[in-house]
């Protein structure tokens, strides 16, 4: 590691840090996924299950990650090296980076779809006479050239922001984009709630069906939403936390506000989307197609629908794009610290690799679906497990709690934090991977998932064992310590 070049940037303001955390975690999933998962799983009952899991798992997990980032002031590999010591076990950080790159290879094409829809909203396509949403979507997804072009533009824009650096690039983007997204969604929600039939959408979304709390599917859906929508274990909170200033707070801003704030935007999306869907008699069970096929149909019959389409897709693009920028920053920060490359070279190398590996997903929607299923169900829990093993079993939660979590903290975090980080989150991650392996036993997706579970840890161990010599670092914490 080239310590000499690591003169770390800092967030200019606490607001910038908070918006970066929210911007990273509020992605396309919050806009289309949260509302329909909520509606399909008992409305208020789902919210209750989601809240319990959010506080029990996501909030402490994010606190731990942010505090480790602040403590180490390093990217993912460096931070986890501080937990494990140098050598093969620092490969836990490599696992996170590999998963992060894999995630971005199919997320960038999705951001490209949203960019395409946003550009079409400016040409007033969705309110043109004879517009047919399904035919439009089919034509788009059967045009690989356009999808590859959109993926290329997205990665070029991501590289452009990252080349500007943490303060001038990432922070400047998120402090405008995240409030812009909230304003766009609030405007849509206000408009939607004044449409005849909107109440049906609210009833569908928020009616408390208590019996759903007795169904395991409700809890699994709530767990998935609580974990994956908060980006726990992706290295985002470690990276964003590593740029915190000396007196900044990790638990209140990095854990509590991030988790609750991110979920709040999902709730706002529910207030915006389902009243619209019901007001225009559309299918609320459209799932993933809700945004790209179902929702684009509401703008044509809506008064000044052109404007609302633009507002919606600009907001949607801001949500997706800020996530893409911050998720890519995780790899950029780490590779910059661990390689002899300059920051600009690193940005170009990382975005170039993601662009190249993303071409199959940009070319084929079915390949993208395959990658998404594999990495969402096995890759992301594996990355979270890697981070929590580093913190929970090497650094130990109690050392992190007394040295970093409660340092300059706005919330006091008690010893309840320790068993959650050490036992509960790892067990939940193993449970998620086992559940999806059981549910998809023998499928190609399951085989690909198992391949990820085997190859990524081995690759991480071998890479760090070969390159990470003990004498290369001096500031590592030996495993052990009391809990």
């Amino acid at each position, binding site marked *: 590691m080239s310590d000499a070049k690591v003169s770390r940037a800092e967030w200019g303001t606490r607001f910038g840090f908070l918006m970066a955390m929210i911007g990273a975690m509020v992605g396309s999933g919050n806009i289309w996924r949260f509302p329909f998962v909520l509606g399909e799983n008992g409305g208020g009952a789902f919210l209750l299950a989601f809240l319990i899991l959010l506080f029990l798992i996501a909030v402490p997990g994010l606190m731990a990650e942010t505090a480790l980032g602040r403590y180490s002031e390093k990217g993912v590999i460096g931070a986890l090296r501080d937990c494990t010591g140098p050598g093969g076990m620092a490969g836990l950080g490599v696992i996170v980076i590999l998963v992060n790159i894999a995630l971005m290879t199919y997320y960038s094409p999705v951001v490209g779809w949203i960019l395409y829809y946003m550009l079409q909203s400016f040409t007033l396509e969705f309110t043109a006479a004879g517009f047919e949403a399904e035919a439009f979507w089919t034509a788009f997804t059967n045009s690989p050239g356009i999808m590859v072009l959109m993926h290329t533009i997205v990665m070029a824009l991501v590289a452009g922001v990252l080349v500007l650096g943490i303060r001038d690039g990432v922070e400047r983007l998120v402090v405008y984009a995240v409030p812009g997204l909230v304003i766009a969604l609030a405007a849509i929600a206000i408009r939607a709630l004044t449409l005849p039939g909107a109440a049906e959408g609210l009833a569908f979304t928020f009616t408390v069906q208590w019996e759903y709390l007795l169904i395991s599917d409700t809890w699994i859906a709530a767990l998935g939403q609580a974990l994956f929508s908060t980006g726990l274990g992706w290295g985002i909170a470690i990276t964003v936390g590593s740029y915190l200033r000396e007196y900044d707070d990790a638990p209140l801003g990095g854990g509590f506000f991030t988790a609750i704030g991110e979920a709040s935007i999902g709730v706002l999306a529910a207030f915006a989307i389902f009243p619209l869907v019901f007001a225009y008699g559309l299918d609320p069970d459209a799932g993933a197609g809700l945004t790209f096929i179902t929702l684009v149909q509401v703008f044509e019959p809506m008064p000044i629908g052109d404007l609302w389409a633009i507002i919606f897709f600009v907001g949607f693009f801001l949500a997706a794009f800020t996530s893409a920028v911050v998720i890519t920053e995780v790899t950029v920060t780490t590779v910059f610290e661990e390689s002899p490359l300059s920051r600009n070279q690193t940005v170009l190398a990382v975005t170039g690799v993601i662009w190249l590996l993303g071409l199959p997903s940009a070319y084929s929607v079915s390949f993208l679906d395959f990658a998404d299923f594999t990495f969402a169900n096995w890759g992301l829990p594996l990355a979270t497990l890697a981070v929590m093993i580093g913190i929970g079993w090497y650094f130990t939660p109690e*050392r992190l709690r007394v040295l970093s979590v409660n340092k300059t903290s706005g919330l006091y975090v008690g010893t309840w934090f320790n068993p959650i980080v050490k036992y509960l989150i790892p067990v939940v991650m193993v449970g998620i991977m086992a559940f999806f392996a059981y549910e998809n036993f023998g499928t190609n997706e399951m085989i690909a998932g198992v391949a990820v579970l085997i190859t990524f840890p081995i690759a991480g161990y071998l890479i760090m064992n070969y390159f990470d010599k003990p004498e290369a670092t001096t500031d590592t914490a030996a495993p052990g310590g009391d809990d």
Partner: protein
Amino acid sequence: MTGITPVVGQILGLSIEAWIGMIIAIIAFWVLATWALFKTLRQDERKLELVDRQGKIETYSPQALQDLRDWIEANPDDPLVEEARAEYNKCVESLNEVDEPFYDWSQEKIDNLEKL
């Protein structure tokens, strides 16, 4: 357009269950998130003001500093104990030097603190 009054009527006509769900959502998410946002921004503002005026602030609350001390005493051989001791002593020094602490420290508590 049928006007806003019938829409308000429809929304007011929602079931009790739907109202409970909406209220849970608004309070549990938006109210808490807004509270956390303002609390952390106000704390940041106050910290910056104290640092500007005094040059520094203490780094731990009374309870957190006690936890740090307990951990140091319980783990004298830990590889990070020297770092923990330095953090503890830095906080004690800051408390003795600043006019106004950030956390809820009484003068009596500060006077009773000793470096490790």
